[in-house]
């Protein structure tokens, strides 16, 4: 009897979330796959098989956006985690009140939305940098966001600015959980600070790497708001990331079937890369 009751409770609790997932995730996904096989313009649609997918292979702009997004993600994931960990190490030193202040300051950019950050930094890159350039005569500061290279690094810088503080928080919590006696034992055995970090703390941080890498990777791939506010794909589509390419295909060209096909490919790619990453970093985790 009791078993039956608990089964009923089990389903009563699980069902609402299952239904929600089905309605807002699974159902749209299934409909999306269906749409990707049509030439839908959002209004009328007829079945065209896999044409959208074969067409993708010769879509230069999409392939470029894909390459750009991959480059962007690789660079920013590495830098964000390096900087985030660095910041975490700084603020976990015994600095008293300053450490709390620093934590707040480092985390602050994450509270500002991507759109606003994009516009603020657009102003900094285009106007402030230009003024510095004319004042100092350094060519480095002029013409930001006007060519593909500075566009790329502009996006990376803003994303670093936004995400590093967030990732810092994750590392802080894991650093705080490392038992003090392990470090102490290491010191007794003659390990210096450097060795203590690389040989003791670093391996114990493996679960933090799993989470942080996953979060930054997934976020880097899906950026749209910051991209829109900062460069909007300009100059000449050279900073158009995949999410923006898909949106533009769907809502400027009204090729919704084609955009869906792009989105499905994008989903598979992100899932593949993220799962591989989680699988690989999981293996490095150690149990204490």
């Amino acid at each position, binding site marked *: 009897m009791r078993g039956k009751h608990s089964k009923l409770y089990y389903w009563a609790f699980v069902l609402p979330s299952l239904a929600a997932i089905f309605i807002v995730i699974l159902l749209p996904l299934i409909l999306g796959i269906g749409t990707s096989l049509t030439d839908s313009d959002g209004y009328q649609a007829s079945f065209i098989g896999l044409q959208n997918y074969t067409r993708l292979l010769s879509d230069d702009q999409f392939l470029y956006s894909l390459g750009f997004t991959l480059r962007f993600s690789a660079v920013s994931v590495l830098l964000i985690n390096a900087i985030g960990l660095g910041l975490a190490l700084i603020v976990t030193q015994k600095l008293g009140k300053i450490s709390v202040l620093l934590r707040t300051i480092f985390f602050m950019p994450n509270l500002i939305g991507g759109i606003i950050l994009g516009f603020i930094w657009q102003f900094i890159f285009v106007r402030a940098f230009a003024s510095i350039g004319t004042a100092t005569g350094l060519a480095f500061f002029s013409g930001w966001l006007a060519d593909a290279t500075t566009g790329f690094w502009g996006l990376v810088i803003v994303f670093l600015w936004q995400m590093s503080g967030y990732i810092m928080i994750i590392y802080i919590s894991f650093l705080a959980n490392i038992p003090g006696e392990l470090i102490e034992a290491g010191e007794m055995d003659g390990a210096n600070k450097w060795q203590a970090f690389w040989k003791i703390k670093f391996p114990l941080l493996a679960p933090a790497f799993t989470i942080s890498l996953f979060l930054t990777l997934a976020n880097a791939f899906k950026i749209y708001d910051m991209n829109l506010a900062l460069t909007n*794909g300009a100059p000449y589509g050279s900073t158009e990331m995949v999410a923006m390419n898909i949106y533009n295909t769907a*809502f400027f060209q009204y*090729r919704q079937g084609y955009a869906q096909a792009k989105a499905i490919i994008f989903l598979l790619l992100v899932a593949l890369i993220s799962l591989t990453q989680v699988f690989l970093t999981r293996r490095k985790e150690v149990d204490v």
Partner: protein
Amino acid sequence: MFSLVALSLLLSACGTGDMEGGAPQSNGGSSAERGSISLDLFNQKPEITAQLENLAERYSEQSENDTTISITTVGSGEGSAGLQARFSSGDEPSLMMLGGLPEVQRYSHTLVDVSDMEVSAQTIDGLLEGGTIDEVPLGIPLNIEGFGWMYNRDIFDQAGIDPDTINSFNDFVEAVETLDSQKEELGIDEVFAFSGGENYIANQFSANFTSPEYNHSILDAYQATELNWEYGDRMQMYTDLFNVYNVQPILTVDYSRSVEELFVHDRVAMVHQGIWIVPTLNDIDPDFASEKLGILPVFGESDTEGKIVAGSPWFIGINSNMSDEEIEEAQNFLDWMYLSEEGQEIVTGDLAFVPAQEGYEPEDIQDPVSRELYEALLEGETAAMTHNQYPDGWFQQVLYPQFQRYLSGDRSWEEFEEHTAAEFEDMR
């Protein structure tokens, strides 16, 4: 477990059922005899939202049917996506602002034929064309807009240039060189502030040179399956000229920098812009538009034939998926807006429109550039807004990036023409 699912389905069914059954039907039903029709207008021009709301309010005040009209605004390039979202969610607007034939075409099966309306009869010849699909006019032109080289009369005066003597491309080049040689005395940064960072500016600029290819006809442009850049070399001549004398880096000059910062503060002599900047100019410097603003034609067709591009970029369509009373009321609203004295006053006053109908006194139009435009249009001396008739997404995804590439020296003009023409054919 099943009863739970069934219950939730039942509940949600009731919920949506209520929403569908309730609001719209009561409008068209028996209660309509005693009035209270409510309509909504989908607006794609955020800059006139407040004025439209005022207009709608004035209409309800004098309406016998106790009609209310609400305004929904989605703009800044997201308007079409917003409108489509309204349609796919089933919450269709009763009146909608549509930009260009491709958009009219998309909704053509749900739009009311407007040919019998009073306001259509008053519309300036040829302007209904931009909202006509298969010879049925489906939209009322909202207003007339036009663009070309907007210049600062003061700066031209100081440099000793009489704008009226610019009658050929060579005159234009000469004026630019004169301005450039006196940059310091005139206190200007550069001659031009062309917004190389705005896709719609590149798009509008191209109309100067695609309009002659399509015989200055919106319909020809809309039906065209290819773009041959017959006047492409003229576009190149202009592009090369302003790129030399422009604020650099040109690719990061956006609208606000070019108009609100440089042009209105006398720091550049010319921008490629349209009369929609007049309200903005008035906000910053109330005398600018009336005293300093002028517009120069573009010699897009030949060395000596200069034209301003003008036309109706926006059309108001009426949704046919409504009760007859509602459709009639929507038509009444448009007739009232453009033909009644009260409506006309708001159209030229509050909204500062250049009207698309005949029968207005040129003196009623507030600023000189708008007046010039209205007169030029009545006389048929303008080029057509062919840029609104390109394939969907072509200007954002192809023309603009390729034009930027040419501006930055990344592409030759031949490559620009070839690439854009090929994509034009593909996307049509």
